Protein backbone atom coordinates (compact mmCIF):
# COMPACT_ATOMS: atom_id res chain seq x y z
CA UNK A 1 0.00 0.00 0.00
CA UNK A 2 1.57 3.23 -1.13
CA UNK A 3 2.03 5.87 1.51
CA UNK A 4 2.02 3.27 4.27
CA UNK A 5 5.69 2.43 4.10
CA UNK A 6 7.79 2.11 7.17
CA UNK A 7 9.65 5.38 7.39
CA UNK A 8 7.07 7.96 6.42
CA UNK A 9 3.69 6.29 6.68
CA UNK A 10 0.75 8.62 6.37
CA UNK A 11 -0.89 8.98 9.75
CA UNK A 12 -4.13 10.32 8.33
CA UNK A 13 -4.41 7.31 6.10
CA UNK A 14 -3.77 5.01 9.08
CA UNK A 15 -6.50 6.76 11.06
CA UNK A 16 -8.89 6.53 8.13
CA UNK A 17 -8.27 2.81 7.79
CA UNK A 18 -8.82 2.27 11.48
CA UNK A 19 -12.09 4.20 11.46
CA UNK A 20 -13.09 1.71 8.77
CA UNK A 21 -12.14 -1.14 11.13
CA UNK A 22 -9.15 -2.23 9.03
CA UNK A 23 -6.03 -3.56 10.70
CA UNK A 24 -2.68 -1.96 9.88
CA UNK A 25 0.24 -4.10 8.69
CA UNK A 26 2.57 -5.41 11.38
CA UNK A 27 5.48 -3.32 10.09
CA UNK A 28 3.39 -0.17 10.43
CA UNK A 29 2.36 -1.06 13.97
CA UNK A 30 6.02 -1.49 14.80
CA UNK A 31 6.85 1.95 13.39
CA UNK A 32 3.89 3.57 15.16
CA UNK A 33 4.92 2.13 18.51
CA UNK A 34 8.52 3.27 18.08
CA UNK A 35 7.38 6.76 17.15
CA UNK A 36 4.94 7.12 20.01
CA UNK A 37 7.58 5.92 22.48
CA UNK A 38 9.77 8.85 21.42
CA UNK A 39 6.87 11.10 22.29
CA UNK A 40 5.88 9.43 25.55
CA UNK A 41 9.41 9.24 26.94
CA UNK A 42 9.39 13.03 27.19
CA UNK A 43 6.24 13.08 29.29
CA UNK A 44 6.51 13.45 33.05
CA UNK A 45 4.85 10.89 35.36
CA UNK A 46 2.44 13.73 36.09
CA UNK A 47 1.27 15.52 32.95
CA UNK A 48 -0.36 18.93 33.43
CA UNK A 49 -3.18 19.86 31.06
CA UNK A 50 -5.91 22.49 30.80
CA UNK A 51 -9.66 22.21 30.47
CA UNK A 52 -11.83 21.82 28.49
CA UNK A 53 -11.17 18.10 28.25
CA UNK A 54 -13.28 14.99 27.98
CA UNK A 55 -12.14 12.18 30.25
CA UNK A 56 -12.66 8.56 29.24
CA UNK A 57 -12.50 5.52 31.51
CA UNK A 58 -11.94 1.84 30.70
CA UNK A 59 -12.53 0.82 27.04
CA UNK A 60 -11.34 -2.81 27.15
CA UNK A 61 -11.23 -3.42 23.43
CA UNK A 62 -14.82 -2.32 22.81
CA UNK A 63 -13.85 -0.53 19.63
CA UNK A 64 -17.37 0.27 18.44
CA UNK A 65 -18.05 1.98 21.72
CA UNK A 66 -14.84 3.98 21.34
CA UNK A 67 -16.09 5.21 17.97
CA UNK A 68 -19.40 6.00 19.68
CA UNK A 69 -17.49 8.11 22.23
CA UNK A 70 -16.04 10.21 19.41
CA UNK A 71 -19.58 10.72 18.10
CA UNK A 72 -20.94 11.69 21.51
CA UNK A 73 -18.00 13.69 22.82
CA UNK A 74 -16.95 15.17 19.50
CA UNK A 75 -14.25 14.02 17.08
CA UNK A 76 -10.54 14.21 17.85
CA UNK A 77 -8.96 16.83 17.59
CA UNK A 78 -12.04 19.10 17.94
CA UNK A 79 -12.43 17.78 21.48
CA UNK A 80 -9.48 17.27 23.82
CA UNK A 81 -9.38 13.78 25.28
CA UNK A 82 -7.84 12.23 28.34
CA UNK A 83 -7.98 8.43 28.51
CA UNK A 84 -7.54 6.82 31.92
CA UNK A 85 -6.20 3.44 30.75
CA UNK A 86 -7.38 -0.15 30.25
CA UNK A 87 -7.57 0.08 26.48
CA UNK A 88 -7.06 -3.63 25.89
CA UNK A 89 -8.26 -7.08 27.04
CA UNK A 90 -11.72 -8.63 27.33
CA UNK A 91 -13.39 -6.93 24.36
CA UNK A 92 -12.99 -8.28 20.83
CA UNK A 93 -11.11 -5.33 19.31
CA UNK A 94 -8.21 -4.48 21.57
CA UNK A 95 -5.82 -4.26 18.62
CA UNK A 96 -8.00 -1.77 16.71
CA UNK A 97 -8.61 0.24 19.89
CA UNK A 98 -4.98 0.67 20.92
CA UNK A 99 -3.78 1.17 17.33
CA UNK A 100 -6.25 3.99 16.81
CA UNK A 101 -5.37 5.66 20.11
CA UNK A 102 -1.66 5.48 19.30
CA UNK A 103 -2.27 7.03 15.85
CA UNK A 104 -4.34 9.83 17.35
CA UNK A 105 -1.69 10.51 19.97
CA UNK A 106 0.95 10.77 17.25
CA UNK A 107 -1.21 12.93 15.03
CA UNK A 108 -2.53 15.29 17.74
CA UNK A 109 -0.07 14.96 20.66
CA UNK A 110 -1.38 17.92 22.64
CA UNK A 111 -5.04 17.04 22.06
CA UNK A 112 -5.01 13.54 23.48
CA UNK A 113 -3.41 12.07 26.57
CA UNK A 114 -3.13 8.42 27.48
CA UNK A 115 -2.62 7.20 31.06
CA UNK A 116 -1.46 3.68 31.85
CA UNK A 117 -3.99 1.25 33.31
CA UNK A 118 -3.30 -2.04 35.06
CA UNK A 119 -4.12 -3.89 31.81
CA UNK A 120 -1.31 -2.11 29.97
CA UNK A 121 1.03 -4.84 31.15
CA UNK A 122 2.66 -7.96 29.70
CA UNK A 123 1.49 -10.24 32.50
CA UNK A 124 -2.16 -9.21 32.53
CA UNK A 125 -2.60 -9.15 28.73
CA UNK A 126 -1.38 -12.73 28.47
CA UNK A 127 -4.22 -13.85 30.66
CA UNK A 128 -7.06 -11.56 29.69
CA UNK A 129 -7.24 -11.71 25.93
CA UNK A 130 -5.02 -9.09 24.23
CA UNK A 131 -2.20 -11.57 23.62
CA UNK A 132 -4.64 -14.10 22.20
CA UNK A 133 -6.20 -11.46 19.97
CA UNK A 134 -2.79 -10.37 18.59
CA UNK A 135 -1.85 -13.96 17.78
CA UNK A 136 -5.16 -14.49 16.04
CA UNK A 137 -5.14 -11.29 14.02
CA UNK A 138 -1.43 -11.22 13.10
CA UNK A 139 -0.37 -14.87 13.38
CA UNK A 140 2.54 -13.91 15.58
CA UNK A 141 3.22 -12.36 18.95
CA UNK A 142 5.23 -9.47 17.45
CA UNK A 143 2.43 -6.95 17.53
CA UNK A 144 1.72 -7.81 21.15
CA UNK A 145 5.40 -7.24 21.88
CA UNK A 146 5.44 -3.83 20.15
CA UNK A 147 2.41 -2.67 22.08
CA UNK A 148 3.41 -4.01 25.49
CA UNK A 149 6.89 -2.48 25.10
CA UNK A 150 5.17 0.81 24.32
CA UNK A 151 2.95 0.47 27.42
CA UNK A 152 6.06 0.88 29.59
CA UNK A 153 6.26 4.48 28.38
CA UNK A 154 2.71 5.57 29.19
CA UNK A 155 2.40 8.21 31.89
CA UNK A 156 0.91 7.41 35.30
CA UNK A 157 -1.18 10.50 36.03
CA UNK A 158 -2.55 13.77 34.73
CA UNK A 159 -3.53 16.96 36.52
CA UNK A 160 -6.24 19.14 34.98
CA UNK A 161 -6.09 22.89 35.75
CA UNK A 162 -3.92 22.27 38.83
CA UNK A 163 -7.09 21.04 40.45
CA UNK A 164 -8.20 17.57 39.35
CA UNK A 165 -5.85 14.64 39.89
CA UNK A 166 -6.43 11.85 37.34
CA UNK A 167 -5.13 8.30 37.64
CA UNK A 168 -6.28 4.83 36.60
CA UNK A 169 -6.80 3.19 40.00
CA UNK A 170 -6.23 5.41 42.99
CA UNK A 171 -3.93 6.51 45.79
CA UNK A 172 -0.96 4.81 47.43
CA UNK A 173 0.11 4.80 51.09
CA UNK A 174 3.63 5.63 49.92
CA UNK A 175 2.55 8.76 48.08
CA UNK A 176 1.54 11.90 49.94
CA UNK A 177 2.54 14.59 47.50
CA UNK A 178 2.32 14.64 43.74
CA UNK A 179 6.05 15.32 43.60
CA UNK A 180 6.63 11.82 44.91
CA UNK A 181 4.94 10.42 41.80
CA UNK A 182 7.33 12.39 39.61
CA UNK A 183 10.36 10.47 40.87
CA UNK A 184 8.94 6.96 40.32
CA UNK A 185 10.83 5.03 37.63
CA UNK A 186 7.86 4.16 35.43
CA UNK A 187 9.63 2.79 32.34
CA UNK A 188 9.10 -0.86 33.17
CA UNK A 189 6.52 -3.60 33.56
CA UNK A 190 4.03 -2.72 36.30
CA UNK A 191 5.46 -4.25 39.49
CA UNK A 192 3.42 -6.35 41.92
CA UNK A 193 3.78 -3.84 44.70
CA UNK A 194 4.87 -0.32 45.47
CA UNK A 195 3.60 3.13 44.42
CA UNK A 196 3.35 2.36 40.71
CA UNK A 197 1.23 -0.73 41.39
CA UNK A 198 -1.01 1.15 43.82
CA UNK A 199 -1.71 3.98 41.36
CA UNK A 200 -3.06 1.56 38.76
CA UNK A 201 -4.69 -0.96 41.10
CA UNK A 202 -6.18 0.59 44.24
CA UNK A 203 -9.88 1.26 44.81
CA UNK A 204 -11.83 3.70 46.98
CA UNK A 205 -13.93 2.27 49.83
CA UNK A 206 -16.60 4.41 51.44
CA UNK A 207 -16.93 2.14 54.45
CA UNK A 208 -13.35 2.71 55.70
CA UNK A 209 -11.73 6.08 56.20
CA UNK A 210 -8.07 5.07 55.84
CA UNK A 211 -6.02 2.67 53.76
CA UNK A 212 -7.00 -0.97 54.20
CA UNK A 213 -5.52 -4.18 52.95
CA UNK A 214 -7.67 -6.23 50.62
CA UNK A 215 -8.64 -9.71 51.90
CA UNK A 216 -6.92 -11.06 48.78
CA UNK A 217 -3.58 -10.47 50.44
CA UNK A 218 -2.50 -7.77 47.97
CA UNK A 219 -3.91 -4.37 47.02
CA UNK A 220 -5.22 -1.41 48.97
CA UNK A 221 -8.47 0.38 49.37
CA UNK A 222 -8.54 3.99 50.51
CA UNK A 223 -11.19 6.00 52.33
CA UNK A 224 -12.40 9.55 52.72
CA UNK A 225 -9.73 10.72 55.19
CA UNK A 226 -6.98 9.66 52.81
CA UNK A 227 -8.65 11.51 49.96
CA UNK A 228 -9.19 14.67 52.01
CA UNK A 229 -5.59 14.67 53.14
CA UNK A 230 -4.20 14.07 49.66
CA UNK A 231 -6.32 16.86 48.15
CA UNK A 232 -5.40 19.27 50.94
CA UNK A 233 -1.66 18.50 50.81
CA UNK A 234 -1.58 18.98 47.05
CA UNK A 235 -3.99 21.87 46.89
CA UNK A 236 -6.43 20.02 44.63
CA UNK A 237 -10.19 19.61 44.57
CA UNK A 238 -11.00 16.30 43.02
CA UNK A 239 -9.70 12.85 42.17
CA UNK A 240 -10.80 11.30 38.91
CA UNK A 241 -10.21 7.63 38.22
CA UNK A 242 -11.60 4.61 36.31
CA UNK A 243 -10.88 0.91 36.99
CA UNK A 244 -14.25 -0.11 38.47
CA UNK A 245 -17.41 -1.15 36.66
CA UNK A 246 -20.53 0.81 37.63
CA UNK A 247 -23.98 0.07 36.27
CA UNK A 248 -24.80 3.77 35.84
CA UNK A 249 -21.51 4.47 33.99
CA UNK A 250 -20.08 6.60 36.78
CA UNK A 251 -19.99 6.96 40.54
CA UNK A 252 -19.27 9.97 42.74
CA UNK A 253 -17.94 9.34 46.25
CA UNK A 254 -16.67 11.10 49.37
CA UNK A 255 -18.88 14.22 49.19
CA UNK A 256 -17.97 14.86 45.57
CA UNK A 257 -14.22 14.55 46.13
CA UNK A 258 -13.73 11.51 43.91
CA UNK A 259 -15.35 10.23 40.72
CA UNK A 260 -15.15 6.94 38.91
CA UNK A 261 -15.76 7.12 35.18
CA UNK A 262 -16.52 3.91 33.27
CA UNK A 263 -16.63 3.96 29.46
CA UNK A 264 -17.35 0.38 28.39
CA UNK A 265 -21.14 0.03 27.98
CA UNK A 266 -22.62 -3.46 28.20
CA UNK A 267 -19.24 -4.57 29.50
CA UNK A 268 -17.99 -7.83 28.00
CA UNK A 269 -21.11 -7.67 25.80
CA UNK A 270 -23.25 -9.03 28.62
CA UNK A 271 -23.45 -6.77 31.70
CA UNK A 272 -26.14 -4.43 30.42
CA UNK A 273 -24.49 -1.46 32.15
CA UNK A 274 -24.34 2.14 30.94
CA UNK A 275 -21.11 4.03 30.31
CA UNK A 276 -20.05 7.65 30.48
CA UNK A 277 -17.37 10.16 29.63
CA UNK A 278 -16.71 13.06 31.96
CA UNK A 279 -16.63 16.48 30.35
CA UNK A 280 -14.55 18.99 32.30
CA UNK A 281 -15.58 22.45 31.08
CA UNK A 282 -13.24 25.42 31.13
CA UNK A 283 -15.14 26.87 34.10
CA UNK A 284 -14.26 23.72 36.04
CA UNK A 285 -17.77 22.28 35.83
CA UNK A 286 -17.93 18.49 35.50
CA UNK A 287 -20.61 16.78 33.42
CA UNK A 288 -21.05 13.03 33.01
CA UNK A 289 -22.20 12.34 29.47
CA UNK A 290 -23.87 8.95 29.80
CA UNK A 291 -24.31 6.59 26.85
CA UNK A 292 -25.41 3.09 25.95
CA UNK A 293 -23.76 0.38 23.83
CA UNK A 294 -23.23 1.15 20.13
CA UNK A 295 -25.66 -0.74 17.85
CA UNK A 296 -22.73 -2.11 15.80
CA UNK A 297 -21.80 -4.36 18.70
CA UNK A 298 -24.74 -6.62 17.81
CA UNK A 299 -23.38 -7.67 14.43
CA UNK A 300 -19.93 -8.25 15.75
CA UNK A 301 -20.79 -10.23 18.82
CA UNK A 302 -22.25 -12.78 16.39
CA UNK A 303 -18.67 -13.81 15.74
CA UNK A 304 -18.56 -14.95 19.35
CA UNK A 305 -20.74 -17.82 18.30
CA UNK A 306 -18.06 -19.15 16.02
CA UNK A 307 -17.01 -22.32 17.80
CA UNK A 308 -13.42 -21.79 16.68
CA UNK A 309 -13.30 -18.72 18.90
CA UNK A 310 -12.82 -21.05 21.79
CA UNK A 311 -11.17 -18.66 24.17
CA UNK A 312 -14.06 -16.26 23.88
CA UNK A 313 -16.57 -18.80 25.15
CA UNK A 314 -16.95 -16.93 28.42
CA UNK A 315 -17.93 -13.78 26.58
CA UNK A 316 -20.88 -15.14 24.72
CA UNK A 317 -24.33 -14.08 25.84
CA UNK A 318 -26.96 -16.20 24.08
CA UNK A 319 -25.00 -19.19 22.91
CA UNK A 320 -26.31 -21.55 20.31
CA UNK A 321 -28.03 -24.67 21.48
CA UNK A 322 -25.45 -26.84 23.13
CA UNK A 323 -25.51 -30.53 24.11
CA UNK A 324 -23.67 -29.93 27.36
CA UNK A 325 -23.47 -32.66 29.97
Amino acid sequence: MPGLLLANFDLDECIERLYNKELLPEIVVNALCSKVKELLIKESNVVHIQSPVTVVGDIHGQFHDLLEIFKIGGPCPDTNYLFLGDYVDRGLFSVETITLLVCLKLRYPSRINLIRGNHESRGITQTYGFYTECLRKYDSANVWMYFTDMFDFLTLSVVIDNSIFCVHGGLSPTIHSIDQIKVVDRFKEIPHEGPMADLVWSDPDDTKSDFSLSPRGAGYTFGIEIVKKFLYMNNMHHILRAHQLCQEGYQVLFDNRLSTVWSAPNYCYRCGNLASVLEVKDNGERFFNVFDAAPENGEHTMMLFNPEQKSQSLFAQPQPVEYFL
Partner: protein
Amino acid sequence: MNIPATTAFSGFTSISTPPAKSFLPPPNNEKLAIAVDDWRIYTTHNPILNSVELDKVTESIGIPMPEMIFGNNGFRLLHEPSGWEITFDALNAVDGVDKTGDRDGLLKVSCSQDWLKSRQKRELESKISGVVKPFDWTYSVAYSGNVTPSPNNTNQISFEVTEERIPIDKLKRPDPILFFDNMILYEDELSDNGSSVLDIKIRVMPERLLLLCRFFLRIDGVLFRIRDSRTYIEFKTGEVIREFQTQEATYESLRKKIPSYVEDYGVYLRDPNWVSQHIPIQSVMCEKAIIT
Protein backbone atom coordinates in the same frame (compact mmCIF):
# COMPACT_ATOMS: atom_id res chain seq x y z
CA MET B 1 1.38 -23.26 47.25
CA ASN B 2 -1.04 -20.97 48.92
CA ILE B 3 -3.83 -23.37 49.76
CA PRO B 4 -4.24 -23.12 53.53
CA ALA B 5 -4.02 -26.31 55.54
CA THR B 6 -7.51 -25.76 56.84
CA THR B 7 -9.53 -26.18 53.67
CA ALA B 8 -12.16 -28.09 55.56
CA PHE B 9 -14.94 -27.15 53.20
CA SER B 10 -15.61 -30.03 50.85
CA GLY B 11 -18.20 -28.30 48.75
CA PHE B 12 -21.78 -29.48 48.77
CA THR B 13 -22.42 -30.37 52.37
CA SER B 14 -26.06 -31.17 52.75
CA ILE B 15 -28.80 -32.61 50.66
CA SER B 16 -31.40 -30.41 52.26
CA THR B 17 -31.67 -27.31 50.11
CA PRO B 18 -32.98 -24.20 51.83
CA PRO B 19 -35.93 -22.28 50.42
CA ALA B 20 -35.07 -19.05 48.62
CA LYS B 21 -34.74 -15.83 50.62
CA SER B 22 -35.95 -12.60 49.14
CA PHE B 23 -33.33 -9.86 48.97
CA LEU B 24 -34.92 -7.55 46.38
CA PRO B 25 -38.47 -7.11 45.12
CA PRO B 26 -39.07 -9.71 42.41
CA PRO B 27 -38.32 -8.32 38.92
CA ASN B 28 -41.45 -8.03 36.82
CA ASN B 29 -40.12 -9.50 33.61
CA GLU B 30 -40.07 -13.19 34.42
CA LYS B 31 -40.95 -15.12 31.28
CA LEU B 32 -42.45 -18.54 30.83
CA ALA B 33 -39.76 -19.96 28.56
CA ILE B 34 -41.33 -23.32 27.92
CA ALA B 35 -44.09 -25.56 29.20
CA VAL B 36 -43.41 -29.23 28.73
CA ASP B 37 -45.34 -32.08 30.28
CA ASP B 38 -46.04 -31.16 33.92
CA TRP B 39 -43.14 -28.73 34.08
CA ARG B 40 -42.93 -24.97 33.54
CA ILE B 41 -39.56 -23.30 33.04
CA TYR B 42 -39.38 -19.58 33.84
CA THR B 43 -36.40 -17.33 33.13
CA THR B 44 -35.51 -13.76 34.05
CA HIS B 45 -32.75 -11.87 32.21
CA ASN B 46 -31.67 -8.42 33.42
CA PRO B 47 -28.58 -6.19 33.59
CA ILE B 48 -26.26 -6.14 36.60
CA LEU B 49 -27.58 -4.46 39.74
CA ASN B 50 -27.61 -0.68 39.92
CA SER B 51 -25.97 1.16 42.80
CA VAL B 52 -29.16 1.48 44.88
CA GLU B 53 -29.88 -2.24 44.63
CA LEU B 54 -26.23 -2.95 45.21
CA ASP B 55 -26.12 -0.98 48.46
CA LYS B 56 -29.26 -2.73 49.65
CA VAL B 57 -28.05 -6.29 49.05
CA THR B 58 -24.52 -5.54 50.24
CA GLU B 59 -26.03 -4.57 53.54
CA SER B 60 -28.43 -7.50 53.85
CA ILE B 61 -25.95 -10.14 52.68
CA GLY B 62 -23.09 -8.54 54.56
CA ILE B 63 -20.15 -8.82 52.15
CA PRO B 64 -19.05 -6.74 49.15
CA MET B 65 -20.82 -8.06 46.06
CA PRO B 66 -19.00 -9.56 43.07
CA GLU B 67 -18.08 -7.00 40.41
CA MET B 68 -20.77 -8.26 38.04
CA ILE B 69 -23.79 -9.32 39.99
CA PHE B 70 -26.89 -10.25 38.02
CA GLY B 71 -29.08 -10.02 41.09
CA ASN B 72 -32.33 -9.80 39.14
CA ASN B 73 -31.66 -12.90 37.05
CA GLY B 74 -32.86 -16.39 37.65
CA PHE B 75 -34.38 -19.69 36.63
CA ARG B 76 -37.48 -21.30 38.09
CA LEU B 77 -38.43 -24.91 37.41
CA LEU B 78 -41.99 -25.50 38.53
CA HIS B 79 -43.81 -28.82 38.73
CA GLU B 80 -47.26 -27.47 38.09
CA PRO B 81 -49.50 -30.21 39.54
CA SER B 82 -47.77 -30.23 42.92
CA GLY B 83 -46.43 -26.67 43.09
CA TRP B 84 -42.95 -28.02 43.92
CA GLU B 85 -40.27 -25.81 42.48
CA ILE B 86 -36.54 -25.30 42.38
CA THR B 87 -35.12 -21.84 41.76
CA PHE B 88 -31.67 -20.48 40.98
CA ASP B 89 -30.71 -16.85 41.53
CA ALA B 90 -27.55 -14.85 42.13
CA LEU B 91 -28.34 -13.41 45.55
CA ASN B 92 -29.27 -16.69 47.18
CA ALA B 93 -26.09 -18.09 45.67
CA VAL B 94 -23.85 -15.28 46.97
CA ASP B 95 -25.49 -15.63 50.37
CA GLY B 96 -23.69 -18.99 50.55
CA VAL B 97 -20.22 -17.44 50.33
CA ASP B 98 -18.13 -17.75 53.51
CA LYS B 99 -18.66 -14.31 55.02
CA THR B 100 -15.83 -14.41 57.55
CA GLY B 101 -13.20 -16.70 56.09
CA ASP B 102 -13.53 -18.92 59.17
CA ARG B 103 -15.40 -21.70 57.43
CA ASP B 104 -13.34 -22.24 54.28
CA GLY B 105 -10.06 -20.50 55.10
CA LEU B 106 -8.83 -17.54 53.10
CA LEU B 107 -6.84 -17.99 49.92
CA LYS B 108 -4.22 -15.43 48.93
CA VAL B 109 -3.27 -14.21 45.48
CA SER B 110 0.05 -15.39 44.12
CA CYS B 111 1.94 -12.14 44.69
CA SER B 112 0.75 -11.85 48.29
CA GLN B 113 4.03 -12.99 49.86
CA ASP B 114 6.15 -10.44 47.99
CA TRP B 115 3.59 -7.87 48.73
CA LEU B 116 3.53 -8.43 52.47
CA LYS B 117 7.31 -8.51 52.66
CA SER B 118 7.63 -5.15 50.96
CA ARG B 119 5.04 -3.68 53.27
CA GLN B 120 7.03 -4.70 56.32
CA LYS B 121 10.17 -3.39 54.72
CA ARG B 122 8.60 -0.02 54.29
CA GLU B 123 7.22 -0.02 57.81
CA LEU B 124 3.88 1.04 56.56
CA GLU B 125 1.94 -0.85 59.18
CA SER B 126 1.02 2.19 61.20
CA LYS B 127 -0.79 3.81 58.30
CA ILE B 128 -2.86 0.81 57.33
CA SER B 129 -5.99 0.38 59.38
CA GLY B 130 -6.03 -3.39 58.87
CA VAL B 131 -7.57 -5.83 56.47
CA VAL B 132 -10.99 -4.99 55.11
CA LYS B 133 -13.39 -7.26 56.97
CA PRO B 134 -12.19 -10.66 55.79
CA PHE B 135 -14.51 -12.82 53.69
CA ASP B 136 -14.05 -15.38 50.96
CA TRP B 137 -13.14 -12.93 48.19
CA THR B 138 -13.08 -15.81 45.67
CA TYR B 139 -16.88 -16.02 46.03
CA SER B 140 -16.64 -19.80 46.14
CA VAL B 141 -20.01 -21.47 46.53
CA ALA B 142 -21.50 -24.88 46.16
CA TYR B 143 -24.87 -23.73 44.94
CA SER B 144 -27.55 -26.20 44.01
CA GLY B 145 -30.56 -23.91 43.90
CA ASN B 146 -33.35 -23.37 46.39
CA VAL B 147 -36.27 -25.73 46.79
CA THR B 148 -39.74 -24.58 47.69
CA PRO B 149 -41.74 -27.54 48.95
CA SER B 150 -45.14 -28.12 47.47
CA PRO B 151 -47.49 -25.58 49.08
CA ASN B 152 -50.48 -27.88 49.58
CA ASN B 153 -48.14 -30.29 51.36
CA THR B 154 -50.29 -33.25 50.38
CA ASN B 155 -47.29 -35.32 49.46
CA GLN B 156 -44.06 -34.73 51.36
CA ILE B 157 -41.26 -34.82 48.86
CA SER B 158 -37.87 -35.69 50.24
CA PHE B 159 -34.59 -36.28 48.49
CA GLU B 160 -32.63 -39.40 49.38
CA VAL B 161 -28.96 -39.95 48.76
CA THR B 162 -28.56 -42.50 46.02
CA GLU B 163 -25.84 -44.48 44.28
CA GLU B 164 -27.68 -43.86 41.06
CA ARG B 165 -26.15 -41.37 38.65
CA ILE B 166 -27.63 -39.06 36.06
CA PRO B 167 -28.21 -41.26 32.98
CA ILE B 168 -25.56 -39.85 30.67
CA ASP B 169 -26.55 -42.22 27.85
CA LYS B 170 -29.98 -40.61 27.64
CA LEU B 171 -28.41 -37.17 27.56
CA LYS B 172 -25.99 -38.15 24.84
CA ARG B 173 -28.83 -38.95 22.46
CA PRO B 174 -29.28 -36.33 19.79
CA ASP B 175 -32.84 -35.62 20.93
CA PRO B 176 -34.19 -32.31 19.73
CA ILE B 177 -33.55 -29.47 22.15
CA LEU B 178 -36.82 -27.63 22.65
CA PHE B 179 -35.29 -24.95 24.78
CA PHE B 180 -31.74 -23.89 25.62
CA ASP B 181 -30.57 -21.00 27.73
CA ASN B 182 -27.57 -19.89 29.70
CA MET B 183 -27.20 -17.19 32.25
CA ILE B 184 -24.44 -15.77 34.37
CA LEU B 185 -25.46 -15.24 37.98
CA TYR B 186 -22.30 -13.50 39.02
CA GLU B 187 -18.74 -12.95 37.94
CA ASP B 188 -15.73 -11.34 39.51
CA GLU B 189 -12.33 -10.85 37.95
CA LEU B 190 -10.70 -10.92 41.39
CA SER B 191 -9.05 -7.59 40.58
CA ASP B 192 -7.34 -9.28 37.65
CA ASN B 193 -5.94 -12.10 39.73
CA GLY B 194 -8.09 -14.65 37.95
CA SER B 195 -11.77 -15.26 37.50
CA SER B 196 -14.73 -16.39 39.53
CA VAL B 197 -17.96 -17.22 37.67
CA LEU B 198 -21.25 -18.81 38.65
CA ASP B 199 -23.36 -19.63 35.64
CA ILE B 200 -26.22 -21.83 34.59
CA LYS B 201 -27.04 -23.75 31.46
CA ILE B 202 -30.29 -25.53 30.79
CA ARG B 203 -31.53 -27.70 27.95
CA VAL B 204 -34.99 -29.13 27.66
CA MET B 205 -35.65 -32.17 25.47
CA PRO B 206 -39.08 -33.75 24.84
CA GLU B 207 -38.72 -36.28 27.66
CA ARG B 208 -36.21 -34.78 30.06
CA LEU B 209 -34.20 -31.74 31.03
CA LEU B 210 -30.75 -31.02 32.38
CA LEU B 211 -29.66 -27.93 34.27
CA LEU B 212 -26.01 -27.33 35.12
CA CYS B 213 -25.11 -24.72 37.71
CA ARG B 214 -21.33 -24.32 37.66
CA PHE B 215 -19.01 -22.38 39.90
CA PHE B 216 -15.64 -21.87 38.20
CA LEU B 217 -12.64 -20.32 39.92
CA ARG B 218 -9.18 -19.58 38.59
CA ILE B 219 -6.67 -17.80 40.77
CA ASP B 220 -3.66 -17.11 38.57
CA GLY B 221 -0.61 -18.93 39.85
CA VAL B 222 -2.59 -20.53 42.68
CA LEU B 223 -5.48 -22.85 41.86
CA PHE B 224 -8.52 -23.98 39.88
CA ARG B 225 -11.81 -24.98 41.47
CA ILE B 226 -15.05 -26.20 39.93
CA ARG B 227 -18.26 -26.99 41.79
CA ASP B 228 -21.03 -28.36 39.61
CA SER B 229 -24.58 -29.08 40.56
CA ARG B 230 -26.69 -30.83 37.96
CA THR B 231 -30.45 -31.15 38.10
CA TYR B 232 -31.92 -33.86 35.89
CA ILE B 233 -35.66 -34.30 35.45
CA GLU B 234 -37.35 -37.23 33.70
CA PHE B 235 -40.82 -35.94 32.85
CA LYS B 236 -42.76 -39.22 32.58
CA THR B 237 -41.67 -40.64 35.91
CA GLY B 238 -41.30 -37.39 37.82
CA GLU B 239 -37.80 -38.52 38.72
CA VAL B 240 -35.51 -35.69 39.83
CA ILE B 241 -31.83 -36.54 40.21
CA ARG B 242 -29.44 -33.96 41.56
CA GLU B 243 -25.70 -34.53 41.27
CA PHE B 244 -23.06 -32.53 43.09
CA GLN B 245 -19.43 -32.69 42.04
CA THR B 246 -16.36 -30.81 43.23
CA GLN B 247 -13.01 -30.54 41.46
CA GLU B 248 -9.82 -28.77 42.45
CA ALA B 249 -6.20 -28.60 41.35
CA THR B 250 -3.22 -26.33 41.69
CA TYR B 251 -2.60 -23.88 38.87
CA GLU B 252 0.76 -25.43 38.03
CA SER B 253 -0.50 -29.00 37.88
CA LEU B 254 -3.11 -27.99 35.35
CA ARG B 255 -0.80 -25.81 33.33
CA LYS B 256 1.47 -28.83 32.87
CA LYS B 257 -1.39 -30.63 31.10
CA ILE B 258 -1.42 -28.12 28.27
CA PRO B 259 0.34 -29.59 25.23
CA SER B 260 3.89 -28.24 25.08
CA TYR B 261 3.54 -26.93 21.53
CA VAL B 262 0.83 -24.50 22.64
CA GLU B 263 2.05 -20.92 22.61
CA ASP B 264 -1.07 -19.27 24.00
CA TYR B 265 -1.79 -21.29 27.15
CA GLY B 266 -4.28 -18.67 28.38
CA VAL B 267 -6.87 -19.96 25.92
CA TYR B 268 -6.93 -23.28 27.75
CA LEU B 269 -6.89 -21.92 31.27
CA ARG B 270 -9.77 -19.55 30.54
CA ASP B 271 -11.96 -22.34 29.20
CA PRO B 272 -14.02 -23.97 31.98
CA ASN B 273 -14.83 -26.94 29.73
CA TRP B 274 -11.19 -27.75 29.12
CA VAL B 275 -10.38 -27.24 32.79
CA SER B 276 -13.26 -29.45 33.96
CA GLN B 277 -12.01 -32.30 31.79
CA HIS B 278 -8.48 -32.07 33.15
CA ILE B 279 -8.72 -31.59 36.89
CA PRO B 280 -9.24 -34.36 39.42
CA ILE B 281 -12.65 -34.96 40.92
CA GLN B 282 -12.73 -34.52 44.68
CA SER B 283 -16.23 -35.69 45.45
CA VAL B 284 -19.47 -36.74 43.76
CA MET B 285 -22.80 -37.13 45.48
CA CYS B 286 -26.27 -37.85 44.12
CA GLU B 287 -29.74 -37.51 45.54
CA LYS B 288 -33.10 -38.41 44.11
CA ALA B 289 -36.79 -37.80 44.61
CA ILE B 290 -39.96 -38.53 42.69
CA ILE B 291 -42.12 -35.48 42.21
CA THR B 292 -45.76 -36.34 41.62
